[in-house]
């Protein structure tokens, strides 16, 4: 084996999206020599796709907003499965993180009195999302990127070298975390341009690698989202929390193929868009579940009146919770009433009083997206939409305050970390999650490094093992093409572990994953024709990513089979009700068995009871929807027992189901975030329409 170059840092951050950049900034501000490892070019990470905004209770638009209200909304959105301490820290610190961005040069949209403007969004009681039109993610990542450059300029003035204390390793991929005994000592990576291997010697590593969407066929996620951090963490001995919770958005583009899965914002439905099948029928009226009958319109006429007069009419069923809409779309397609490309029709044609001009004004980015990518003019034609994999709530189990994983020296922040969003993420909470916990991870890693007596060495053995693993696809001859294996894995995950799950299918998926395990271990690639054959080699790259997607798929499938209830981003056809007993359970994944062929093992871990002052923020009536009677404040003795008996009745179960689907619903008894003072009817539509919107748009 050839000599491999080594670089020593105090803190290595893997991932250069919002969380990774914020972590790196913090580590550098703490005086640590820091590296950011980015799978793509600097500034291209998936954070750029976020549109809606960054949720922070600044109270700029409605002064009644504060961290307690935000905390409550987040817990409701996550169906109380959130790590409450993370939700608390997030709600408390988000405003400072947003103001800090502004201090680094971000230009948010403004209120009339010159403050940062805030918009309504699904599940948020008050207008709370700081935003820049519909490109907030781009603003966030560009600002963090420019802050990194600013720090590099400081170092350049001081040391004559921009990279002296903070270096961005663009287009570099980590394939293994390295350990010395039970603690982290570095990471093994390769530089994409040349394929050369690099060892990072570092006592602290922050994972900020984002999500897992590329394990599914239809996803709104970019190519980087292959579960790298989830998998690296497990391979290093850390644990993943509640991986069954995967957010599927009901309306992604299904055509053209180049953008299949790309999100179609829920504002389309909030702005009078309706769903139709191939018979031209507004089918959602057929799919209003019993528990929602009282809250949704039963005729098209009433539904249509709601947009202008929400106080005296019921909402159209297009605005049912996300999983209900997705389920309905699935059923229509299965019944043969789908659109030509396997979705259903979503149309705003002739739906707005102001005609085509109003459509363009209200939905500029959607108009642009369909015009440019599908050659579809949404003012004249219907869109074709279907469910798409959007976000994973599950992730690395971390300490809320320091972002430390169970392995000493390992930290995680952003989508790769678990707990913050419980079973379901509210739109807008992701961008502030990145900032709050990115900073905390950078801080946690710095403090960890400060407390170390000595640096853990990186032994030649661990490096050699990592190199062997990375080279393996070249060593194998005549194996399968990684693209084929990937496409089939994605198809299976979509078909069997997708938005609606049932026992037989999950069991079948777990069986199928066994076969994929062999196939993934067997893919082979040929070197490219130049240099040592590894430079910018897409097939090799995918071959290495496959290991990660396989492990993550196994974690999701096993956890999904285990959790026998429906909650947030986990819908079981065979267990449609949310169960307070299951709420007390975290499902924790770790790897066991032989290091060369590890398996995901699942363990039930009790949820830590919420602190009294936090639980005191909720009314007991609301808590009853989520908690067992024994958990309610003041519970105990005969009262609790009596209530426990009552929970067995169908009525209670229905109440649970009603509470299940979404945030605002659960929070205020089924009413969508009501229009706030001064909001127009259209504003109400927006607020209501996005009530179920869990993504960033």
């Amino acid at each position, binding site marked *: 084996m050839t000599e491999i170059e080594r670089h020593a840092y105090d803190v290595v951050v893997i991932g250069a999206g919002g969380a990774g950049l914020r972590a790196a900034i913090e580590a550098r501000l703490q005086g640590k020599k820091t590296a950011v490892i980015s799978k*793509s*070019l*600097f*500034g*291209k990470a*998936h954070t*750029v*796709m976020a549109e809606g905004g960054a949720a922070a209770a600044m109270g700029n638009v409605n002064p009644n907003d504060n961290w307690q209200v935000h905390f409550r909304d987040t817990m409701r959105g996550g169906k109380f499965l959130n790590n409450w301490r993370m939700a608390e820290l997030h709600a408390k610190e988000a405003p400072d993180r947003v*103001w*800090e961005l*502004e*201090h*680094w*040069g971000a*230009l948010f*949209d*403004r209120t009339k*009195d*010159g*403050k940062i*403007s805030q918009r309504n969004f699904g599940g948020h009681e008050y207008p709370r999302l700081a935003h*820049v*039109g519909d*490109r907030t993610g*781009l*603003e966030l990542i*560009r600002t963090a990127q*420019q802050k990194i*450059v*600013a720090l*590099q*300029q400081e170092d*350049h003035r001081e040391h004559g070298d*921009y990279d002296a204390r903070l270096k961005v390793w*663009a287009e570099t991929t980590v394939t293994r975390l390295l350990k010395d005994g039970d603690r982290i000592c570095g990471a093994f990576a390769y530089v994409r*341009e040349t394929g050369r291997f690099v060892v990072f010697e570092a006592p602290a590593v922050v994972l900020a690698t984002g999500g897992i969407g590329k394990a599914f066929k239809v996803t709104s996620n*970019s*190519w*980087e989202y292959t579960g790298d951090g989830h998998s690296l963490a497990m391979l290093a001995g850390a644990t993943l929390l509640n991986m069954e919770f995967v957010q599927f958005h009901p309306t992604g583009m299904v*055509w*053209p*193929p*180049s*953008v299949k899965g*790309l999100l179609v914002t829920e504002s389309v439905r909030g702005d009078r868009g309706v769903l139709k099948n191939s018979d031209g029928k507004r089918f959602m009226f057929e799919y209003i579940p019993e528990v929602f009958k009282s809250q949704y319109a039963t005729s098209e006429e009433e539904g249509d009146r709601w947009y202008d007069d929400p106080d005296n009419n019921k909402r159209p069923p297009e605005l049912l919770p996300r999983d209900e809409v997705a389920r309905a779309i699935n059923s229509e397609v299965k019944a043969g009433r789908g659109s030509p490309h396997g979705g259903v029709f979503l149309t705003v044609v002739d739906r707005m009083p102001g005609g085509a001009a109003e459509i363009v004004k209200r939905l500029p980015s959607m108009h642009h997206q369909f015009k*440019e*990518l*599908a*050659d579809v003019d949404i003012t004249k034609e219907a869109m074709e939409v279907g469910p798409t994999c959007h976000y994973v709530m599950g992730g690395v189990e971390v300490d809320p305050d320091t972002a430390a994983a169970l392995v000493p020296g390992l930290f995680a922040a952003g989508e790769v970390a678990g707990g913050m969003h419980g079973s379901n993420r509210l739109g807008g909470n992701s961008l502030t999650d990145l900032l709050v916990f990115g900073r905390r991870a950078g801080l946690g890693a710095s403090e960890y490094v400060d407390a170390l007596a000595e640096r853990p060495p990186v032994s030649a053995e661990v490096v050699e093992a990592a190199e062997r693993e990375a080279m393996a696809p070249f060593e194998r001859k005549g194996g399968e*093409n990684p*693209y084929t294996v990937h496409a089939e894995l994605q198809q299976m995950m979509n078909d069997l572990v997708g938005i609606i799950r049932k026992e037989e299918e999950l069991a079948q998926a777990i069986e199928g994953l066994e076969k994929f395990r062999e196939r993934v271990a067997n893919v082979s690639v*040929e070197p*490219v*024709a*130049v*240099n040592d054959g590894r*430079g*910018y*080699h*897409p097939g090799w790259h995918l071959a290495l990513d496959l290991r990660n997607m396989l492990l993550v798929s196994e974690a999701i499938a096993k956890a999904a089979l285990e959790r026998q209830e429906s909650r947030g981003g986990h819908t079981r056809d065979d267990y449609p009700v949310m169960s307070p007993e299951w709420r007390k359970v975290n499902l924790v994944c770790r790897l066991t068995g032989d290091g060369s062929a590890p398996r995901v093992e699942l363990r039930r871990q009790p949820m830590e009871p919420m602190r009294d002052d936090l639980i005191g923020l909720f009314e007991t009536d609301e808590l009853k929807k989520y908690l067992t009677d024994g958990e309610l404040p003041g519970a105990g003795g005969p009262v609790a027992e009596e209530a426990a008996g009552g929970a067995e009745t169908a009525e209670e179960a229905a109440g649970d189901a009603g509470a299940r689907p979404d945030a605002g619903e659960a929070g205020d008894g089924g009413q969508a975030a009501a229009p706030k003072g001064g909001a127009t009817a259209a504003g109400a539509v927006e607020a209501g329409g996005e009530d179920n919107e869990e993504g960033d748009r």
Partner: protein
Amino acid sequence: MSYEASFRVWRGDDGAGELKDYKVEVNEGEVVLDIIHRLQATQAPDLAVRWNCKAGKCGSCSAEVNGMPRLMCMTRMSTFEPDETITVTPVRTFPVIRDLVTDVSFNYEKAQQIPSFDPGDVKPGEFRMQQVDVERSQEFRKCIECFLCNNVCHVIRDHEENKPGFAGPRFLMRIAELEMHPADAADRREIAQQDHGLGFCNITKCCTEVCPEHIKITDNALIPMKERVVGRRYDPLVWLGSKLGVVRKGQDTPSA
């Protein structure tokens, strides 16, 4: 509605290369990047291409399609005739790494030389800015850094010798963005001209034409920036005033 298209794709590294011919399936609704990916998956597993979001939001898949600088993910196949040969080459202004991937480090180096946002003495949370005032810079912050503007700019497209003294439209626009930022306290007018080559720009608007975000780079950033530089350097009253010591010149912020 599938058909077989003729593609010519540039294959090679920084040493040498050639245009290679491929016959490849095209389906309805696809974009150029889909076809490149199909080549990877079926005929050329080692074909190097840089891409990311595939939705025109990250600016990674810049290339030249039939000689036009484009994002491959935003170039629909339906804009070509089925019998047309489509030629895909790497962007010309930056050195080729391999195939369609180029070394764009020029851009990151230029970014490091532009002095960053300077908030002055204002504390976080204390900024008060009007929407109308932030909108000018917001337009420039729509930039997805695809670097097609820098690629197409004739000042450096075929003039390697101009690269050290020219930041390109992308980063001259960054200077304009900071200059028009309502809360920025630095003054980059002098370095815009002196270090970053604003004077090279003779407003041919090629950059504006290729911008996938439709930012009016020339009209809204470069020309106003030129006017500001003129005001700083050549305004006779300012000149006279500073000579007499009546007008105190602001601090010019040096390049970083």
